[in-house]
């Protein structure tokens, strides 16, 4: 129940896009067609679902103050917290790289739809943001929570980009003032969309 609650919260209420603006660059750039938006969304769901729990493990067993105690008493006073950024981003980059290679080798079909997006994802801030937010949670997450959080944050991100792509496909036919075309109107659109998503703000389940 608690996990379902967390999942729903992360999809709708703490939406990566509309609440935190994470991953905006690819959100804006790759939302012209529903099909591609969906592909990118799936890639984000996958990578977030893998890297958040992975980074949770690293935080728990390597980075936290005293986390290295499992190596022996000598290590219990070490605090590697300042390495957080570099470790997290390396993990993400590595996972993305490995996934890309694995998909390319084992499932060319999937690679066709997902593969092209993977390199983009290493620098998608929603991935690193997901990991950093996960660490900042109070009370701290356990592994299951971290996994659910990663997956559902990804789903929330996907929902947002697919919805935006739907609207943008519809807007192909509209007559937007020339200076606003492209990026400008998309910003305004995202603003209005996030008003809609505000309805979830304050939801208590």
């Amino acid at each position: 129940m608690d996990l379902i609650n967390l999942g729903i919260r992360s999809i709708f209420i703490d939406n990566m896009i509309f609440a935190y603006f994470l991953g905006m660059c690819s959100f804006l750039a790759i939302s012209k067609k529903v099909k591609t938006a969906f592909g990118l969304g799936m890639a984000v769901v996958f990578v977030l679902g893998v890297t958040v729990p992975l980074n949770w493990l690293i935080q728990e067993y390597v980075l936290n103050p005293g986390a290295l105690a499992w190596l022996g008493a000598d290590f219990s006073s070490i605090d590697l917290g300042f390495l957080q950024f570099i470790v997290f981003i390396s993990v993400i980059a590595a996972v993305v790289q490995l996934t890309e290679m694995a998909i390319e080798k084992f499932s060319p079909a999937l690679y066709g739809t997902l593969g092209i997006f993977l390199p983009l994802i290493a620098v998608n801030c929603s991935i690193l943001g997901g990991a950093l937010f996960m660490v900042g949670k109070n009370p701290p997450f356990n592994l299951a929570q971290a996994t659910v959080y990663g997956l559902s944050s990804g789903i929330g991100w996907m929902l947002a980009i697919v919805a935006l792509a739907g609207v943008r496909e519809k807007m192909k036919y509209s007559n937007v003032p020339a200076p606003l075309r492209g990026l400008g109107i998309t910003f305004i659109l995202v603003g209005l969309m996030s008003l809609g998503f505000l309805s979830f703000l304050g939801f208590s389940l």
Partner: protein
Amino acid sequence: MSEVAELVKEEKKAEPLFSKKNRKLISNPLDSDNPITVQVLGICSALAVTTQMVPALFMAGSLLFVTVFSNLFISLMRNTIPSRIRIIVQLAVVSLWVIMVDQLLKAYAYDVWKQLSVFVGLIITNCIVMGRLEAFAMGNKPWPSLLDGLGNGLGYGLILLLVAFFRELLGGGALFGFKVFEAIGIKYQGNGLMLLPAGACIIVGIIIWVQRSLNGYREAH
């Protein structure tokens, strides 16, 4: 390193430090080639940290610092990085500088550091930094790279501060925490929308509208 220094020296001879071309490296990103409003990079933080001027200023400063030095470093190393692993190397270099900024802020400006929360860390994945490294520093000499970093950092900061200006002024009737409207004797009712994410998006949209109306930039449809 000496070789590189040589190169820098040579270049100095070849053209003045602030030649027209080099000045362009700084001025273009301010308007016609602005990283946020034209190149669509680094938007996440532009929206998230701009409810007030103070954090926006710190954020702009941090990013400026990171872009300048990352650009410089990558440019210095550009001939020694194997292209296969260049993304990792770039990320590592950027992370180093970000960690440095993060620790500095934590030590000297704790309140702001708290306010900025994960967004300092997210400079690592800020596309401006990565984008400039890929697009410029990898193929240019250190001095222009530094200038390019400076220009883009400033261009980013400009938009950030502009957004924060409107959001704080319209949202709270204040600037840098100073109650402007009260000071001149006007009772101002803060506009809550401006403080919400939606307000930030819409303000960026309007800034783009105005900017492109003025400079004539149009996106291909």
